[in-house]
């Protein structure tokens, strides 16, 4: 590789940082520029919805450790606004053009805003994605609101709601599905976890939807639900999932849309005709790729460990590693909801059965193993992480489902449920 080569990383988050490190570790000795929309060095997001909101650590303490040296040009506070693949340049919002020979796209996602922008701008209405969001929300929680409304019962919504209870704040969680976490874990496991949160005093309103937010003098005062009910709350956290940051790629001739930037199995991005561009890779929340463990189904994963592993893969690829090795790490994530730890390995999508293989949902500690067409496809632990690695192994190898003798504490067969997807 010619030392004069230039690598550009767009997105100074977890994936951008770990991708840049991997480029260097794999021997890339050219110039390395990291472009970030936010003014901050890369920081860690998981603590934002947990110990930062709890007030245990300040938002600015989350700067990530890294192993990059002084030979990195950090361009922070200026987003990339365009990509010209013919010229080989990334255009920044301030008009500058950065030439690249190798490009890593790692622009992640942003919080999906409340659909009505006027209501979304009311004081007291928050979303949570970045460090500044978390600092602002922490201040609002510390002021002791009479009630917090959490809109959306996904992972972030459940984390925020359970954290409010830890802070002693009354909280209502509104989720259109019959249970929290229904989309990712199914209604059966979602109901078990929802019961734990309800037991801690979260006012769960499942099967209900917030229709509009009412303000007085520019401040949120209450929410109106589609079933006619009202929730008096001066603080609302909109936790409706994420939108991928791909707009800056409009006109670049890549396969990119709100569903992500399409990659091939190796990690190269695909152009509009579906051909890989060998100068460009993508990683982290923004990337969609065919997962070899799931029959090549195209997935985009919004998980910390995935961002780390896929970015390391992409960095090596851009540094010149042979593209024959497909990226296919087993998807894993964790979520800390109050003191409750939910962890998962594999992808639950398409599951036709779920078995409780360890513990007991009624005790709030268990392992759920998901099966599809007679094979294990995913496992979820609730305060039972020590049992997860063995289950992850069954998922990684596609072991037969239902498993035999998997449960050391349950020799006489295991309970099997409809997982409740649809």
């Amino acid at each position, binding site marked *: 590789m010619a030392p004069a080569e230039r690598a550009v990383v767009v997105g100074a988050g977890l994936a951008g940082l770990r991708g840049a490190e991997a480029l260097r570790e794999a021997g890339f000795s050219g110039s390395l520029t990291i472009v970030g929309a936010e003014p*901050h*060095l890369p920081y*860690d997001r*998981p*603590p934002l919805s947990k*110990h930062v909101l709890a007030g*245990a*650590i300040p938002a600015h*303490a*989350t*700067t*990530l*450790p*890294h*192993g*990059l040296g*002084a030979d*990195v040009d*950090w361009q*922070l506070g200026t987003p990339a606004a365009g990509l010209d693949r013919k010229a080989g340049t990334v255009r920044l919002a301030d008009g500058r053009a950065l030439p690249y020979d190798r490009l890593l796209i790692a622009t992640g996602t942003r919080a999906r805003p409340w659909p009505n922008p006027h209501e979304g701008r009311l004081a007291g209405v928050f979303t949570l994605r970045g460090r500044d969001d978390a600092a602002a929300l922490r201040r609002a929680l510390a002021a002791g609101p009479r009630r917090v409304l959490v809109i959306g019962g996904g992972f972030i919504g459940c984390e925020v709601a359970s954290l409010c209870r830890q802070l002693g704040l009354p909280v209502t969680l509104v989720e259109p599905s019959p249970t929290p976490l229904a989309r990712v874990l199914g209604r059966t496991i979602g109901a078990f976890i929802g019961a734990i949160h309800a037991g801690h005093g979260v006012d769960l309103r499942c099967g209900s939807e917030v229709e509009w937010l009412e303000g007085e003098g520019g401040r949120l005062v209450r929410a109106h639900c589609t079933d006619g009910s009202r929730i008096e709350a001066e603080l609302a956290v909109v936790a409706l999932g994420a939108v991928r940051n791909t707009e800056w790629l409009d006109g670049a001739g890549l396969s990119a849309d709100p569903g992500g930037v399409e990659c091939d199995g190796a990690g190269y991005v695909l152009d509009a005709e579906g051909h890989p561009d060998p100068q460009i890779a993508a990683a982290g929340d923004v990337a969609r790729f065919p997962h070899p463990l799931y029959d090549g189904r195209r997935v985009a994963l919004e998980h*910390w*460990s995935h961002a*780390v592993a896929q970015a390391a893969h992409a960095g090596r690829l851009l540094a010149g590693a042979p593209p024959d090795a497909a990226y296919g790490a087993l998807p*894993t*994530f*964790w979520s*800390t909801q*109050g*003191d*409750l*730890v939910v*962890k998962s390995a594999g992808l639950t999508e398409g599951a036709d059965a779920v078995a409780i293989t360890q513990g007991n949902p009624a005790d709030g*500690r268990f392992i759920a193993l998901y099966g599809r067409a007679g094979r294990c496809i995913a496992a979820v632990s609730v*305060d039972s*992480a*020590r049992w997860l690695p063995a289950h992850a192994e069954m998922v990684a190898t596609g072991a037969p489902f239902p498993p035999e003798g998997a449960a050391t504490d349950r020799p006489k067969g295991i309970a099997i449920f409809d997982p409740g997807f649809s």
Partner: protein
Amino acid sequence: MSTRADASSGSPPGLRVSVDLNLCQAYAQCCYAAPRHFRIEGHEALFYDPAPAAEDRDDIERARVACPVQAIRVEDPGRGV
């Protein structure tokens, strides 16, 4: 800009710590090694201080080395990584 953003305070740059909580099995060895910076909440939720002071580096290093699954990553800007 500089990669050492917090050098302005005058105190020596602190450490940066992150833990891969997928790897973490909550066996708490880090909590014994550095109880002021790591603790288990509930059954298995690890709290860690992502920005310990530079003078705590020996405790943090002991915690890092004690972790059986090498889930703890530390950067020590005052010393190089």
